[in-house]
């Protein structure tokens, strides 16, 4: 077993100075935002808000200036992200591009792709979605069937992507598509493409979730032409590129703050008459929150130092996902109020929302079972 080490990391003064700016911005921008809107955390969408965040220089913060980025540190970026999440800001429009699509293009994209796609992302005007899973595929990405066939000047894509969050809203999809097959290697023959969601032949069908929201979608491709210059990296290298991309997805504060608004409303509720049982329940949650935050900052510190903390990121997501799901469970245990979809106070409404929404917190971006298998591999279980 290798060593797992979360080096304690303190945010530098420059990052802390930025915190005050972000708080001021959020207070001014989200002044009348309700608790229930804030509870949507990073699934809430507001194009105007994303543009304002871009104007402040808080998207693509660590990316090179050559593409419009700001070359700030990973720790400064961390502060912006966690302040947005703690406030429940509607960051969903630009979130995926900032978190994973931009970094993917920086790593594997061509110079032309970076010049074309990164500046609008950084302005908060260009939104991305991630086309990975498919019908019957679930988490087993090596079995995807959507295919791209070579044609003059590009590729013809056919197939269906499923569970694609914000596909109805995004300008581009980064899709994992089959371009070949190797009977001896099921991870071979996959490629990543940038697909313009305005292309002809694309049908986006929203799928209502159990809360009644339309967040994720089925996306059908029928003879969609994708130009050659929209292939990301090498044809056939999709699997290793996606693996690197998903590691980026796992490590951020979005992986433990998704239910934060309910913790706040729970504290407001128990503070009215703090019983021993309720203070213990809240105290335990706050202890876990404080520890998760230190682990998440530690991961940001490792990224800033140029390391690739894939296992550490997976461990934070594992603990964070359990924490995010424990908050509604414990809130129910401590208060026992019926969650209300309509009426009631902030606590009832936020409890209702997160009791339902948190089901997905151990599914999205790879199920808990996949995550635990990744950790097991990191532990060198064989």
């Amino acid at each position: 077993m290798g060593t797992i080490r979360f080096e304690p990391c303190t945010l530098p003064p420059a990052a802390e100075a930025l915190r005050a700016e972000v708080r001021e911005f959020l207070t001014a921008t989200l002044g009348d935002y309700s608790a229930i809107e804030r509870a949507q955390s990073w699934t809430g969408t507001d194009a105007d808000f994303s543009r304002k965040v871009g104007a402040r220089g808080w998207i693509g913060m660590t990316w090179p200036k050559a593409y419009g980025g700001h070359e700030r540190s990973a720790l400064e970026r961390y502060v912006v992200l966690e302040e947005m999440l703690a406030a429940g800001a509607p960051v969903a429009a630009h979130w995926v591009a900032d978190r994973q699509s931009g970094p993917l293009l920086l790593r594997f994209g061509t110079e032309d792709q970076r010049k074309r796609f990164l500046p609008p992302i950084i302005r908060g005007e260009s939104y991305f979605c991630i086309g990975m899973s498919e019908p019957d595929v679930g988490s087993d990405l090596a079995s995807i069937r959507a295919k791209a066939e070579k044609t003059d000047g590009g590729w013809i894509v056919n197939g269906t992507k499923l569970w694609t969050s914000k596909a109805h809203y995004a300008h581009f999809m980064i899709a994992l598509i089959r371009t070949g097959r190797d009977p001896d290697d099921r991870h071979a023959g996959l490629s990543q493409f940038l697909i313009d969601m305005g292309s002809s032949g694309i049908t986006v069908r929203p799928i209502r979730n159990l809360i009644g929201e339309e967040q994720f979608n089925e996306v059908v491709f029928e003879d969609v032409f994708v130009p050659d210059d929209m292939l990301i990296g090498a044809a056939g290298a999709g699997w290793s590129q996606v693996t690197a991309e998903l590691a980026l997805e796992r490590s951020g504060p979005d992986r433990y703050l998704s239910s934060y608004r309910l913790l706040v409303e729970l504290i407001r509720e128990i503070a009215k008459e703090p019983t021993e049982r309720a203070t213990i329940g809240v105290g335990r949650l706050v202890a876990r929150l404080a520890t998760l935050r230190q682990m998440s900052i530690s991961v940001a510190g490792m990224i800033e130092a140029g390391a690739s903390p894939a296992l550490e990121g997976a461990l934070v997501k594992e603990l964070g996902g359990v924490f995010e799901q424990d908050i509604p469970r414990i809130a129910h245990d401590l208060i026992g109020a019926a969650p209300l979809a309509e009426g009631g106070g902030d606590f009832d409404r936020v409890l209702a929302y997160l009791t339902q929404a948190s089901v997905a917190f151990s599914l999205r971006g790879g199920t808990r079972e996949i995550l635990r298998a990744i950790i097991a591999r990191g532990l060198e279980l064989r």
Partner: protein
Amino acid sequence: MNELQIILTETSARLFGEHVTKEVLEAAEKGAWPDDLWAAVEENGLTKPLVPDAQGGAGAGWAEAFVILHAAGSFAAPIPLAETIIAGRLLSLAGIDTPPGPLSVAPVGKAETLRLEAKGGGRIGGAASAVPWGGKVEHVAVLAEKEGELHVALIARDAYIAEGDRNIAGEARDRIIFDDSPVVAAAPAGDGITREAIWLMGALARVAQMAGGIGRILAESVRYANHREQFGRPIARFQAIQHQLAVLASHAAAADMAAESAALALDAGDAAFEIACAKVVTGEAAGLGAAIAHQVHGAIGFTYEHALHFITRRLWSWRAEFGAENAWAERIGRDVAARGADALWSDLTARQAG
């Protein structure tokens, strides 16, 4: 880690690996004192990290004490190293020289009061319960009242009675009784030396030991799962086993993070919040981790023959000592409720800004 932490980590691991054998652990449970182990620890300067250079210590901080105690926990070293380190801190803050040999501290229960005689102050009376290693050490450093003021006093083993309780790991948790007992030295307690301070240092020490122990049972469980074959393959291949070990790994990581952060916070100043968080998180991880390690080890891990229990029985003891999870969680919860819901985030980010 700083350079001293790295050196101390390596020294501790080498030394405990050499001296904390199964035979030593079994003998310690039967009451034998591990002379060679203690001598090696003392010769290598691991007993006084918090005592200033000028007083014969290492002049380091809790960051360094943390790595020593983490290693001690990881090997289940059957010696009062945590207690000796805390006693050294207590004595040095009061300006009293720290004697060689194993030490303990009292009282560790908050309600008990020891009293130095008003005139002279050369004698002490009272009783303290659950004193770790109370009867096994050569001296005990105590907080005692003298005319309403707190003093630190040092008393030699032959000057008090110890009645032996033991925790489930076989570690002495004695009631010690002073009956007009002579003190070796006494002085007014230094700044910030209160019962609360002993309680916090004790909790931090147990947190460091538990974090080490949890890391060890993770490593042992991974090793066992990779070697033990069932149904024609190593049990590490079964998803049911993999997922349990992934959960254990996540809690081991949380315990380490919480514990080390608390140690660094105490070096920086007030660490009551960080130590409380660490005792909650590490205590939870200890209970859950021990359960998983035993489940993965199966029946063999339930035998006295197998060494797993030397760690797990300590984890079950340590998580309750110096305040169990709920006691610390209640403190945190009460403070958070009093500060109000909207202060939580700004309070947390301000505290962790260092």
